[in-house]
């Protein structure tokens, strides 16, 4: 690893970009909703091209229970505690959205064979904080904050769970949820004393599946919230309306001095950009609008459904996935007001543009992505959420998900699917599983925040 004086992570985004290449990937795989009565698990995948087991799952850590629906995850420590020599990026916090259990996984002792360190039981979290349905995990110094999408009974808006560095429940992190209707993702930028949070829906709404009519009944989000980070309370709400239906992944620039950030509105298939203007007021605008595409068998055109976005560590490129169309796009956002499309690849999706890639039938569309610190390799998986998979891509039950790698040109822009990397989760030992979020031992482009 990089020589440094202090704690985990890197002194700056530019130092992070110089880190050694990732050689292991940790990826979530689920059986929840598949009909296979086995626990969800954390895969370790060999990403070292010089290794004989390159592009293979080399170990699997099963969770103790069945039906957790592992989804997103985060590290116990990141560059936000780079100055703290007592901290180490050692544990992944792996929540179950349906069970509310938090699995604390030790990836540091033997990185090729992670082991379960501790479980924070969902029943304890519900009893202590009246929260359920954990989603995004961010560390803040040695503390951990997790967005919880519901109360203990799955009603919105939920709140934020606060854990200490020993993974003990401190309580609720926020002092107030204000008038916020729903929770989902969040990211903080402490030099501007701001946190931004987005909106999916109540767990009782999104967990059983997606009913389009419920969007019109205001059961899904369309607002973005700007928090006073130190006071731990919402300060300002942006009503995005039809331009911002179901705003999901929230990304600030990695540069801690920047006020610019972005959110992908899944159903509107737009990218919304926000920033603080010269007068100190937060502003927003739409910078990407993915058009609906005709489909031979559909009475209405298919929306892209932008299920994820992320920014390269140098804040130059924005990547997005259109889960229903089946494309990943790369935009140059050097001028954040003016995104320029510089790359596009196709895999799976409903438009039949690339049903097979690298010899594997791609079921689902590009969904979760993770970018290497140097910005050159983008790993992508195909499952979104078990019940939503079952609605849009029912064949995923028998085919499973898959992971591919996309090579990204960081000089002139451009993307190409790597022909030598594919992990077919349809061939897992216990039967077809579905792969979701990925993290690297040394940090990645959605894990680290600089304070």
């Amino acid at each position, binding site marked *: 690893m990089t020589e440094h004086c202090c704690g985990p992570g890197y002194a700056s985004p530019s130092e992070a970009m110089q880190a050694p290449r990732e050689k292991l990937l940790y990826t979530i795989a689920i059986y*929840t*909703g*598949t*009909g296979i*009565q086995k626990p969800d698990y954390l895969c370790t995948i060999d990403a070292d091209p010089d290794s004989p087991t390159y592009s293979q799952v080399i170990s699997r850590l099963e969770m103790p229970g*069945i*039906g*957790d*629906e592992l989804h997103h995850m985060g590290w116990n420590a990141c560059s936000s505690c780079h100055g703290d020599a007592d901290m180490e990026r050692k544990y992944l916090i792996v929540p179950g959205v*349906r*069970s*509310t259990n938090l699995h604390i996984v030790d990836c540091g002792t033997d990185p090729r064979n992670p082991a379960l360190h501790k479980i924070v039981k969902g029943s304890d979290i519900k009893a202590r904080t009246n929260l*359920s349905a954990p989603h995004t995990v961010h560390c803040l110094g040695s503390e951990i904050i997790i967005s919880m999408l*519901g109360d*203990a*009974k*799955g009603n919105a808006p939920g709140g934020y769970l606060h854990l200490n560095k020993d993974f003990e429940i401190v309580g609720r992190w926020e002092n107030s949820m204000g008038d916020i209707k729903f929770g989902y993702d969040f990211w903080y930028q402490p030099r501007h004393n701001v946190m931004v949070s987005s909106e999916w829906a109540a*767990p*009782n709404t999104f*967990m*059983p*599946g*997606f*009913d*389009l*009519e*419920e969007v019109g*009944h205001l*059961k899904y989000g369309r607002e973005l919230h700007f928090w006073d980070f130190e006071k731990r309370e919402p300060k300002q709400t942006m009503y995005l309306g039809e331009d911002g239906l179901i705003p999901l992944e929230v990304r600030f620039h990695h540069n801690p001095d920047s006020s610019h950030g972005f959110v992908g509105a899944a159903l509107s298939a737009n990218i919304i950009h926000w920033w603080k203007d010269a007068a100190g007021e937060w502003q927003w605008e739409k910078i990407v609008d993915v058009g609906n595409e005709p489909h031979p*068998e*559909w*009475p*209405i055109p*298919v929306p892209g459904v932008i299920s994820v976005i992320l920014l390269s560590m140098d804040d130059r490129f924005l990547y997005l996935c259109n889960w229903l169309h089946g494309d990943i796009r790369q935009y140059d956002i050097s001028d954040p007001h003016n995104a320029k499309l510089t790359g596009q690849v196709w895999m799976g999706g409903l438009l039949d543009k690339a049903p097979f890639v690298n010899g594997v039938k791609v079921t689902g569309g590009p969904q979760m992505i993770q970018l290497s610190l140097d910005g050159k390799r983008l790993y992508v998986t195909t499952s979104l959420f*078990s*019940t939503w998979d*079952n*609605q*849009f891509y*029912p064949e995923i*039950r028998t085919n499973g998900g898959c992971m591919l790698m996309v090579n990204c040109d960081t000089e002139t822009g451009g993307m190409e699917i790597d022909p030598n990397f594919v992990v077919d989760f349809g061939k897992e030992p216990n039967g077809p599983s579905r792969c979701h979020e990925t993290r690297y031992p040394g940090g990645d482009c959605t894990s680290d925040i600089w304070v």
Partner: protein
Amino acid sequence: MTQHRITIANRDNAVYRVDPHKPLLTSLLDQGVDLPYGCKYGGCITCAARLIAGEVNQKAQVALNNRQINDGYVILCVARPVTDCTLEIGVESHGDLYRNPFLDPLAAHELKADIATPLEEKT
């Protein structure tokens, strides 16, 4: 105490005797039936099963829309048997549970109970 007989149609019609005051999920898990489940409060649909015969009380469920209820789905983690019942369990029973919402939208009366418009009585 009166127990109800629960027949599992897709497990060779195996029969279990259950307490009418306990959720079916709890009673069946306790007797060794392998069932999927998630939230255990009636909100996440993971444990949905199809009721082929009989009656349950599932007032506490909030996962199903009216179409799914009309198709016979019940949420085992909160449903309590009112009579003897026959069930089809597991993901094998989920054939009609999931539909593409763009291709097959719900009618106003098929939404979840809190937002559904009741069908007008035909006179």
